[in-house]
Protein backbone atom coordinates (compact mmCIF):
# COMPACT_ATOMS: atom_id res chain seq x y z
CA UNK A 1 0.00 0.00 0.00
CA UNK A 2 1.12 3.53 -0.61
CA UNK A 3 2.17 5.36 2.46
CA UNK A 4 0.82 8.67 1.20
CA UNK A 5 -0.98 10.09 -1.80
CA UNK A 6 1.42 10.85 -4.64
CA UNK A 7 -0.30 13.98 -5.86
CA UNK A 8 1.54 16.78 -4.10
CA UNK A 9 5.07 15.44 -4.19
CA UNK A 10 4.96 14.21 -7.76
CA UNK A 11 3.19 17.19 -9.27
CA UNK A 12 5.58 19.59 -7.56
CA UNK A 13 8.54 17.49 -8.72
CA UNK A 14 7.06 17.45 -12.21
CA UNK A 15 6.46 21.18 -12.35
CA UNK A 16 9.87 22.01 -10.91
CA UNK A 17 11.48 20.69 -14.08
CA UNK A 18 11.35 23.90 -16.02
CA UNK A 19 10.52 27.50 -15.63
CA UNK A 20 9.19 29.53 -18.54
CA UNK A 21 10.05 28.00 -21.89
CA UNK A 22 8.32 30.50 -24.11
CA UNK A 23 9.79 31.60 -27.42
CA UNK A 24 10.13 35.10 -28.79
CA UNK A 25 7.33 36.09 -31.12
CA UNK A 26 9.79 37.22 -33.80
CA UNK A 27 11.42 33.77 -33.61
CA UNK A 28 8.06 32.07 -34.03
CA UNK A 29 7.22 34.13 -37.11
CA UNK A 30 10.55 33.44 -38.75
CA UNK A 31 10.48 29.75 -37.82
CA UNK A 32 6.91 29.42 -39.11
CA UNK A 33 8.09 30.77 -42.47
CA UNK A 34 11.06 28.38 -42.47
CA UNK A 35 8.72 25.53 -41.54
CA UNK A 36 6.47 26.24 -44.52
CA UNK A 37 9.53 26.43 -46.78
CA UNK A 38 10.72 23.08 -45.45
CA UNK A 39 7.33 21.53 -46.23
CA UNK A 40 7.42 22.98 -49.75
CA UNK A 41 10.94 21.60 -50.28
CA UNK A 42 9.82 18.15 -49.13
CA UNK A 43 6.89 18.22 -51.54
CA UNK A 44 9.20 19.35 -54.35
CA UNK A 45 11.43 16.37 -53.61
CA UNK A 46 8.46 14.05 -54.23
CA UNK A 47 7.86 15.72 -57.58
CA UNK A 48 11.58 15.53 -58.37
CA UNK A 49 11.52 11.77 -57.87
CA UNK A 50 8.53 11.54 -60.24
CA UNK A 51 10.35 13.60 -62.86
CA UNK A 52 13.31 11.22 -62.58
CA UNK A 53 11.02 8.21 -63.24
CA UNK A 54 9.26 9.98 -66.12
CA UNK A 55 12.61 10.92 -67.71
CA UNK A 56 13.74 7.29 -67.52
CA UNK A 57 10.61 5.94 -69.17
CA UNK A 58 10.59 8.75 -71.74
CA UNK A 59 13.85 7.39 -73.11
CA UNK A 60 12.21 4.00 -73.61
CA UNK A 61 9.20 5.71 -75.15
CA UNK A 62 11.34 7.38 -77.83
CA UNK A 63 14.08 4.82 -78.35
CA UNK A 64 12.72 1.31 -77.90
CA UNK A 65 12.32 -0.60 -81.18
CA UNK A 66 9.13 -2.42 -80.16
CA UNK A 67 5.76 -0.68 -80.11
CA UNK A 68 4.50 -2.64 -77.08
CA UNK A 69 7.48 -1.56 -75.00
CA UNK A 70 6.87 2.05 -76.07
CA UNK A 71 3.20 1.71 -75.16
CA UNK A 72 4.26 0.27 -71.80
CA UNK A 73 6.55 3.24 -71.17
CA UNK A 74 3.74 5.66 -72.06
CA UNK A 75 1.34 3.90 -69.68
CA UNK A 76 3.94 3.90 -66.91
CA UNK A 77 4.44 7.65 -67.37
CA UNK A 78 0.68 8.16 -67.14
CA UNK A 79 0.59 5.99 -64.01
CA UNK A 80 3.37 8.13 -62.47
CA UNK A 81 1.35 11.30 -63.13
CA UNK A 82 -1.68 9.67 -61.50
CA UNK A 83 0.27 8.56 -58.42
CA UNK A 84 1.84 12.02 -58.02
CA UNK A 85 -1.63 13.55 -58.25
CA UNK A 86 -2.90 11.15 -55.56
CA UNK A 87 0.06 11.83 -53.29
CA UNK A 88 -0.40 15.56 -53.74
CA UNK A 89 -4.12 15.37 -53.02
CA UNK A 90 -4.27 12.84 -50.20
CA UNK A 91 -0.89 12.01 -48.79
CA UNK A 92 1.55 14.83 -49.23
CA UNK A 93 3.47 16.12 -46.26
CA UNK A 94 1.48 19.16 -45.31
CA UNK A 95 1.90 21.80 -42.67
CA UNK A 96 -0.05 21.33 -39.43
CA UNK A 97 -3.69 22.35 -39.88
CA UNK A 98 -4.75 25.53 -38.13
CA UNK A 99 -7.80 23.89 -36.52
CA UNK A 100 -5.82 21.56 -34.26
CA UNK A 101 -7.46 23.07 -31.19
CA UNK A 102 -10.98 22.44 -32.43
CA UNK A 103 -10.45 18.68 -32.37
CA UNK A 104 -10.20 16.75 -29.13
CA UNK A 105 -7.04 14.71 -28.71
CA UNK A 106 -8.99 11.48 -29.06
CA UNK A 107 -10.69 12.53 -32.31
CA UNK A 108 -7.45 13.90 -33.73
CA UNK A 109 -5.54 10.74 -32.84
CA UNK A 110 -8.27 8.55 -34.35
CA UNK A 111 -8.46 10.59 -37.55
CA UNK A 112 -4.69 10.39 -38.02
CA UNK A 113 -4.67 6.62 -37.51
CA UNK A 114 -7.68 6.14 -39.81
CA UNK A 115 -6.11 8.31 -42.51
CA UNK A 116 -2.90 6.31 -42.43
CA UNK A 117 -4.78 3.01 -42.40
CA UNK A 118 -6.92 3.99 -45.40
CA UNK A 119 -3.86 5.09 -47.34
CA UNK A 120 -2.08 1.82 -46.61
CA UNK A 121 -5.12 -0.29 -47.41
CA UNK A 122 -5.85 1.44 -50.69
CA UNK A 123 -2.26 1.26 -51.89
CA UNK A 124 -3.25 -1.39 -54.46
CA UNK A 125 -5.71 0.87 -56.20
CA UNK A 126 -3.74 4.10 -56.24
CA UNK A 127 -0.09 3.06 -56.13
CA UNK A 128 0.48 -0.46 -57.41
CA UNK A 129 -2.24 -1.34 -59.92
CA UNK A 130 -1.79 1.82 -62.07
CA UNK A 131 1.71 0.59 -62.91
CA UNK A 132 0.65 -2.95 -63.83
CA UNK A 133 -0.59 -2.38 -67.43
CA UNK A 134 2.47 -0.31 -68.35
CA UNK A 135 4.96 -2.76 -66.88
CA UNK A 136 3.12 -5.69 -68.46
CA UNK A 137 3.35 -4.09 -71.93
CA UNK A 138 6.95 -3.20 -71.26
CA UNK A 139 7.90 -6.78 -70.39
CA UNK A 140 6.02 -8.20 -73.40
CA UNK A 141 7.57 -5.60 -75.69
CA UNK A 142 11.08 -6.31 -74.42
CA UNK A 143 10.59 -10.06 -74.82
CA UNK A 144 9.18 -9.60 -78.34
CA UNK A 145 12.06 -7.33 -79.35
CA UNK A 146 14.65 -9.79 -78.10
CA UNK A 147 13.26 -13.36 -78.11
CA UNK A 148 16.63 -14.71 -76.98
CA UNK A 149 16.38 -12.78 -73.72
CA UNK A 150 12.79 -13.78 -72.98
CA UNK A 151 13.74 -15.87 -69.98
CA UNK A 152 15.60 -12.90 -68.47
CA UNK A 153 12.55 -10.70 -69.05
CA UNK A 154 10.29 -13.37 -67.50
CA UNK A 155 12.54 -13.49 -64.46
CA UNK A 156 12.32 -9.68 -64.12
CA UNK A 157 8.53 -9.94 -64.39
CA UNK A 158 8.38 -12.57 -61.63
CA UNK A 159 10.60 -10.43 -59.39
CA UNK A 160 8.33 -7.45 -60.12
CA UNK A 161 5.17 -9.41 -59.28
CA UNK A 162 6.70 -10.71 -56.05
CA UNK A 163 7.77 -7.19 -55.13
CA UNK A 164 4.27 -5.84 -55.70
CA UNK A 165 2.74 -8.67 -53.68
CA UNK A 166 5.26 -8.08 -50.89
CA UNK A 167 4.54 -4.34 -50.77
CA UNK A 168 0.79 -5.05 -50.74
CA UNK A 169 1.15 -7.64 -47.95
CA UNK A 170 3.32 -5.38 -45.78
CA UNK A 171 0.88 -2.51 -46.17
CA UNK A 172 -2.11 -4.71 -45.35
CA UNK A 173 -0.32 -5.96 -42.25
CA UNK A 174 0.41 -2.39 -41.13
CA UNK A 175 -3.23 -1.43 -41.83
CA UNK A 176 -4.46 -4.30 -39.65
CA UNK A 177 -2.19 -3.05 -36.84
CA UNK A 178 -3.75 0.41 -37.17
CA UNK A 179 -7.22 -1.20 -37.11
CA UNK A 180 -6.38 -2.75 -33.76
CA UNK A 181 -5.10 0.59 -32.43
CA UNK A 182 -8.30 2.31 -33.53
CA UNK A 183 -10.42 -0.38 -31.89
CA UNK A 184 -8.50 0.03 -28.62
CA UNK A 185 -8.86 3.80 -28.81
CA UNK A 186 -12.62 3.46 -29.35
CA UNK A 187 -12.94 1.04 -26.46
CA UNK A 188 -11.03 3.33 -24.11
CA UNK A 189 -12.94 6.54 -24.91
Amino acid at each position, binding site marked *: *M*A*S*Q*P*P*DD*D*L*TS*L*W*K*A*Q*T*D*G*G*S*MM*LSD*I*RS*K*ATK*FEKRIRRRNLLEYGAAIFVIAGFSRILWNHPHVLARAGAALTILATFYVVYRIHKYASVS*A*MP*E*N*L*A*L*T*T*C*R*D*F*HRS*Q*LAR*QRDLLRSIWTWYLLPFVPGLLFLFIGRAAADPGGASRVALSAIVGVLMFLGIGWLNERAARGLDREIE*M*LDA*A*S
Partner: protein
Amino acid sequence: MAEAPGSGGLAARDVLYEQAASEFGGALQRLAGAYEADPDRRQDLLQDIHIALWRSFATFDGRCSLRTWVYRVAHNVATSQVIRRRAHSPTLVSLDEVASMPDGHDGERLVNRQRALERLLALIQTLKPADRQVILLYLEGVDAVSIGEITGMSSGNVAIKVHRIKQILARRFHEGGSYGQSTS
Protein backbone atom coordinates in the same frame (compact mmCIF):
# COMPACT_ATOMS: atom_id res chain seq x y z
CA MET B 1 -10.12 32.30 -20.13
CA ALA B 2 -8.91 34.63 -22.84
CA GLU B 3 -11.39 36.25 -25.11
CA ALA B 4 -10.42 36.64 -28.71
CA PRO B 5 -9.50 40.27 -29.02
CA GLY B 6 -10.21 40.38 -32.72
CA SER B 7 -11.27 38.43 -35.74
CA GLY B 8 -8.17 36.29 -35.86
CA GLY B 9 -5.95 38.88 -37.51
CA LEU B 10 -2.18 38.97 -36.97
CA ALA B 11 -2.26 41.32 -33.97
CA ALA B 12 -4.90 39.28 -32.14
CA ARG B 13 -2.97 36.14 -32.92
CA ASP B 14 0.23 37.64 -31.52
CA VAL B 15 -1.46 38.80 -28.32
CA LEU B 16 -3.04 35.40 -27.73
CA TYR B 17 0.18 33.59 -28.48
CA GLU B 18 2.17 35.73 -26.04
CA GLN B 19 -0.43 35.17 -23.34
CA ALA B 20 -0.45 31.42 -23.97
CA ALA B 21 3.34 31.22 -24.08
CA SER B 22 3.68 33.13 -20.86
CA GLU B 23 1.05 31.06 -19.02
CA PHE B 24 1.84 27.64 -20.46
CA GLY B 25 5.43 27.89 -21.73
CA GLY B 26 6.72 25.71 -18.89
CA ALA B 27 3.96 23.14 -19.34
CA LEU B 28 4.71 22.94 -23.07
CA GLN B 29 8.38 22.38 -22.36
CA ARG B 30 7.55 19.57 -19.94
CA LEU B 31 5.11 18.10 -22.44
CA ALA B 32 7.77 18.05 -25.16
CA GLY B 33 10.16 16.32 -22.75
CA ALA B 34 7.54 13.69 -21.97
CA TYR B 35 6.97 12.91 -25.64
CA GLU B 36 10.56 13.00 -26.82
CA ALA B 37 13.60 11.72 -24.95
CA ASP B 38 16.18 12.85 -27.50
CA PRO B 39 17.19 16.48 -26.73
CA ASP B 40 17.37 17.62 -30.37
CA ARG B 41 14.05 16.04 -31.31
CA ARG B 42 12.55 17.43 -28.11
CA GLN B 43 13.61 20.92 -29.13
CA ASP B 44 12.18 20.39 -32.62
CA LEU B 45 8.90 19.17 -31.15
CA LEU B 46 8.69 22.14 -28.80
CA GLN B 47 9.31 24.47 -31.71
CA ASP B 48 6.64 22.72 -33.81
CA ILE B 49 4.18 23.06 -30.93
CA HIS B 50 4.86 26.79 -30.58
CA ILE B 51 4.49 27.34 -34.32
CA ALA B 52 1.26 25.32 -34.45
CA LEU B 53 -0.02 27.28 -31.46
CA TRP B 54 0.75 30.63 -33.05
CA ARG B 55 -0.86 29.55 -36.32
CA SER B 56 -3.90 28.14 -34.51
CA PHE B 57 -4.74 31.48 -32.91
CA ALA B 58 -5.81 32.76 -36.31
CA THR B 59 -9.05 30.86 -35.67
CA PHE B 60 -9.41 31.29 -31.91
CA ASP B 61 -13.02 32.21 -31.22
CA GLY B 62 -13.27 31.76 -27.47
CA ARG B 63 -15.42 28.65 -27.69
CA CYS B 64 -13.14 26.95 -25.19
CA SER B 65 -10.71 28.20 -22.58
CA LEU B 66 -7.19 29.23 -23.53
CA ARG B 67 -5.89 26.31 -21.46
CA THR B 68 -8.01 23.75 -23.33
CA TRP B 69 -6.94 25.31 -26.64
CA VAL B 70 -3.24 25.22 -25.79
CA TYR B 71 -3.25 21.65 -24.48
CA ARG B 72 -5.24 20.35 -27.45
CA VAL B 73 -2.84 21.90 -29.93
CA ALA B 74 0.22 20.71 -28.02
CA HIS B 75 -0.96 17.13 -27.53
CA ASN B 76 -2.24 16.87 -31.10
CA VAL B 77 1.10 18.02 -32.52
CA ALA B 78 2.98 15.65 -30.21
CA THR B 79 0.64 12.74 -31.00
CA SER B 80 1.10 13.20 -34.73
CA GLN B 81 4.85 12.95 -34.10
CA VAL B 82 4.34 9.70 -32.15
CA ILE B 83 2.29 8.31 -35.06
CA ARG B 84 4.87 9.44 -37.63
CA ARG B 85 7.71 7.82 -35.73
CA ARG B 86 5.87 4.70 -34.59
CA ALA B 87 7.84 2.41 -36.91
CA HIS B 88 11.10 3.51 -35.25
CA SER B 89 9.85 3.54 -31.65
CA PRO B 90 9.54 0.79 -29.08
CA THR B 91 6.05 -0.65 -28.58
CA LEU B 92 3.93 1.63 -26.44
CA VAL B 93 1.79 0.26 -23.66
CA SER B 94 -1.43 1.19 -21.87
CA LEU B 95 -1.82 2.16 -18.22
CA ASP B 96 -3.35 -1.25 -17.54
CA GLU B 97 -0.30 -2.96 -18.98
CA VAL B 98 2.03 -0.72 -16.97
CA ALA B 99 0.08 -1.55 -13.82
CA SER B 100 0.67 -5.25 -14.36
CA MET B 101 4.35 -4.90 -15.23
CA PRO B 102 6.93 -5.60 -12.56
CA ASP B 103 9.03 -2.60 -11.66
CA GLY B 104 12.50 -3.32 -10.39
CA HIS B 105 12.31 -0.26 -8.19
CA ASP B 106 9.07 -1.11 -6.39
CA GLY B 107 9.39 -0.47 -2.71
CA GLU B 108 12.73 1.21 -3.11
CA ARG B 109 13.14 4.32 -1.04
CA LEU B 110 13.57 7.11 -3.54
CA VAL B 111 15.66 9.90 -2.16
CA ASN B 112 17.00 11.38 -5.35
CA ARG B 113 14.62 13.80 -7.01
CA GLN B 114 16.48 13.75 -10.31
CA ARG B 115 16.35 9.97 -10.42
CA ALA B 116 12.67 9.99 -9.57
CA LEU B 117 12.04 12.45 -12.37
CA GLU B 118 14.00 10.37 -14.86
CA ARG B 119 11.96 7.30 -13.90
CA LEU B 120 8.73 9.22 -14.16
CA LEU B 121 9.68 10.47 -17.63
CA ALA B 122 10.72 6.98 -18.71
CA LEU B 123 7.37 5.64 -17.50
CA ILE B 124 5.42 8.33 -19.37
CA GLN B 125 7.41 7.80 -22.57
CA THR B 126 6.35 4.13 -22.69
CA LEU B 127 2.64 5.03 -22.66
CA LYS B 128 0.29 5.12 -25.62
CA PRO B 129 -0.73 8.65 -26.61
CA ALA B 130 -4.21 8.55 -25.03
CA ASP B 131 -2.84 7.47 -21.65
CA ARG B 132 0.13 9.79 -21.95
CA GLN B 133 -2.22 12.74 -22.44
CA VAL B 134 -4.14 11.90 -19.27
CA ILE B 135 -1.10 11.41 -17.06
CA LEU B 136 0.54 14.62 -18.31
CA LEU B 137 -2.61 16.66 -17.75
CA TYR B 138 -2.97 15.08 -14.31
CA LEU B 139 0.61 16.01 -13.41
CA GLU B 140 -0.01 19.56 -14.61
CA GLY B 141 -2.85 19.74 -12.12
CA VAL B 142 -5.66 19.85 -14.69
CA ASP B 143 -8.98 18.69 -13.19
CA ALA B 144 -10.84 15.63 -14.48
CA VAL B 145 -13.60 17.61 -16.23
CA SER B 146 -11.04 19.65 -18.16
CA ILE B 147 -9.04 16.51 -19.00
CA GLY B 148 -12.24 15.14 -20.53
CA GLU B 149 -12.78 18.35 -22.49
CA ILE B 150 -9.21 18.38 -23.81
CA THR B 151 -8.91 14.70 -24.64
CA GLY B 152 -12.51 13.94 -25.64
CA MET B 153 -12.72 11.04 -23.17
CA SER B 154 -15.86 10.48 -21.13
CA SER B 155 -15.67 11.66 -17.52
CA GLY B 156 -16.06 8.04 -16.38
CA ASN B 157 -13.05 6.94 -18.38
CA VAL B 158 -10.99 9.89 -17.20
CA ALA B 159 -11.86 9.02 -13.58
CA ILE B 160 -10.82 5.39 -14.12
CA LYS B 161 -7.55 6.41 -15.76
CA VAL B 162 -6.71 8.97 -13.08
CA HIS B 163 -7.41 6.37 -10.40
CA ARG B 164 -5.11 3.93 -12.18
CA ILE B 165 -2.42 6.60 -12.56
CA LYS B 166 -2.54 7.35 -8.84
CA GLN B 167 -2.16 3.64 -8.05
CA ILE B 168 0.81 3.26 -10.39
CA LEU B 169 2.55 6.39 -9.14
CA ALA B 170 1.95 5.44 -5.51
CA ARG B 171 3.34 1.97 -6.07
CA ARG B 172 6.34 3.09 -8.06
CA PHE B 173 7.30 6.29 -6.32
CA HIS B 174 5.99 6.30 -2.80
CA GLU B 175 6.07 2.84 -1.40
CA GLY B 176 8.56 2.93 1.40
CA GLY B 177 8.90 6.68 1.51
CA SER B 178 8.92 9.94 -0.33
CA TYR B 179 11.69 11.26 -2.56
CA GLY B 180 13.22 14.56 -1.82
CA GLN B 181 13.83 13.62 1.81
CA SER B 182 17.10 12.69 3.31
CA THR B 183 17.53 9.05 4.27
CA SER B 184 19.99 9.52 7.05
